[in-house]
């Protein structure tokens, strides 16, 4: 006998499988906060996934086909926590203006 009395019309079956929400939110692009970006050396990378675990914005993921880490330019804020946490020292910060790609160019700051 449950302590909580749930009205019959509000009862729902426990457990449900929901489709995943969108992986990227185009209304919340934060790539223009970045002054330096982490550049990966795939030769030295051991795919220990530390960058994936510690990234606050989930901007690193493992591409299972190529077995390489993939970086997301649109949402990386340039906090460089991944560089701090990388045990293989395969990441290095490079100034953003060295790269012609990764241009976000928003109309409003956020």
């Amino acid at each position, binding site marked *: 006998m449950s302590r909580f009395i749930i009205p019959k019309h509000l009862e729902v079956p426990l457990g449900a499988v929901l489709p995943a929400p969108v992986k990227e939110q185009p209304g919340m692009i934060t790539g*223009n*906060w*970045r*002054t330096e970006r982490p550049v990966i050396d795939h030769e030295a990378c051991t795919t220990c996934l530390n960058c994936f675990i510690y990234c606050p914005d989930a901007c690193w993921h493992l591409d299972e086909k190529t077995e390489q880490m993939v970086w997301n330019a649109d949402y990386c804020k340039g906090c460089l926590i991944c560089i701090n946490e990388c045990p293989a020292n395969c990441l290095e910060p490079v100034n*953003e*203006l060295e790269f*012609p790609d990764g*241009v976000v*160019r928003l109309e409003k*700051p956020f």
Partner: protein
Amino acid sequence: MSQEVYEVTIWARGVFQDMEGRHASLLMANAADLGGKFVQAWDDYADLPDRVGVPLRKYVRLSDEEIEMRFVYVNNNPNLVVIMDDTIVKGMNILRGMPKGGSLIVNTRRTPDEILAFIPNKELLANIVCVDASGIAADAAIDFMGSEGGVEVASVGAGISAPLVGAASKVCDMFDVKNVVKVAANKDGVQKGFDSAQVKAL
């Protein structure tokens, strides 16, 4: 608005350039005030609270007659745009609303051509000025004091704002570099910024 008002928009990075951005707007306003102009200087309210690295806007209005746009809190048509960190040119449409013949001041170690490669609507510009303000001020004045409203009047313009406004006075005729030297705390930095600025007319 039919009134002729010279509008300035300053873009700075959140938190670590927030105070310097405000000081740049105050320096321009104070220097133009000494030159007998009517001035307004304020922060963009919509950008607050700032987060580390977020592009922030600071605004200045300068005019020969009294400014009537008292309740408009954004500069929709800036004649002069100041970029306090060069990587902002990649992330924002910084020349939005600029009338033809505007000016752009960038704090960078790079050449004007390298910066222009990242600006798609550069036909709006009459000239671009590049000055290594961070190198001149040598990161001496990076601190987090003055975030959110605090204004330290005694040392306005101690950091990178001084060379930037000095360089801006090279292309902007609304304020004179002599008046900027008078109001800035880092007087040497203003003069160095004025002397070392690379101006490129387009």
